[in-house]
């Protein structure tokens, strides 16, 4: 009985940890692609690098927030357990 309860809690906490890790992977892939395209665009046309850099930072912030949604949920799970 106690073992079953402990198992539930530890599974939940493990799920929270894996979720946070997956969220980080998602953010990494998304921002990496943005950065890659930005580098490519800047290499093709160095005059536009100021505008490209500005747009890159803004979109990176948006993607990062999507990953942080998941992180906050994982934190909530951890604190409930």
């Amino acid at each position, binding site marked *: 009985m106690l073992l079953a309860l402990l198992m539930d809690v530890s599974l939940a906490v493990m799920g929270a940890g894996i979720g946070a890790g997956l969220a980080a992977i998602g953010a990494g892939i998304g921002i990496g692609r943005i950065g890659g395209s930005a580098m490519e665009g800047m290499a093709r046309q160095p005059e536009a690098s100021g505008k490209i850099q500005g747009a890159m*930072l*803004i979109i990176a*912030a*948006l993607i*990062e*927030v999507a990953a*942080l*949604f998941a*992180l*906050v949920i994982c*934190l909530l799970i*951890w*604190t409930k357990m």
Partner: protein
Amino acid sequence: MSDSCLSLSNLRKKRLLLTAALFFAFSAVFASSEPHEEEKFNPADLIFHHISDAHEWHFATTPSGQHITLYLPVILYSSDRGLETFSSHVFHNEADAHTSAIYNGYTLDEKGHLIATDGRSFYDISITKNVMMLFLTAFLLVAVMLSVAAGYKKNKGKAPKGIQSFIEPIILFVRDEIVKPNLGHKTDKFLPYLLTLFFFILFGNLLGLLPGAGNLTGNIAVTLTLAVFTFIITNVSGNGAYWSHIFWTPDVPLPLRAVILPVEIIGIFTKPISLTVRLFVAITAGHIVLLSLICLAFVFHSYVVGTFSSLVVLFIYLIELLVAGIQAYVFTLFTSVYIGMATAEHHDDH
């Protein structure tokens, strides 16, 4: 023409000072010494204590164990007892710092929420730490903008000086890069709201990064309120084309319109929800990351870890300053996009 409408006249200054003095008259700063307890350091408690709202404003703890705390007023309204006002110092338990004392049937639970010991219901409209931060942000916003306006009056026709020259490029950036591309000739109608929104979020984010400050824009109630304002403004100024696109989408076969209708209706509500959650999560997660890295040094009890974590924290703090500006920009940008979509003129290209 008098300048009392643009500059802070003497009477206004006195009123502002009196208001500030009244707030501080209801609270008192106490320095109390706590017995030093040897207990296991819990990073989760520290982090949540720093990012959540509280009835007292704990600035710092001196090395000798004294807590510098500002005890904020508690204002409660219940139907049987009416309005009750007292300082939250009454909850401070001298004997045991971690439990709260009971006063008049009210006490604080472990999370710092005010509850009634006999389970009565009441309205808690206290001045908490976040409310004080809200007042501070609003006061700062009013002071800065009024002095910029006074600067325009004084330097009519001349180059801007002082704080006017610092704020003016930011205002022009908001007007020309964010509002004008999305609103076109309706810019002047919505520009006051959008400028207020931008500067309020920017000041709120930046003030929340100061040490000892409260986490204003990381409070989901605050961001929800801002998103509700956007929701109201968007839907009230929505013209016929906007509503007809939602309920009776043109250029789409008839059976598909019944499917699109609930999706569009949900779409009206997901926009403010996404605005709320985006700002809340960005700021709160930033604070959590900063606090976790600082706690690393305390968990490992090592100077090397402390030095490295301080450098990393410095770097991430600079990123958080950037995020503060970017989140203000993104909130204002999306708001102007939504208002632009709602007030767009009907184009005859269907």
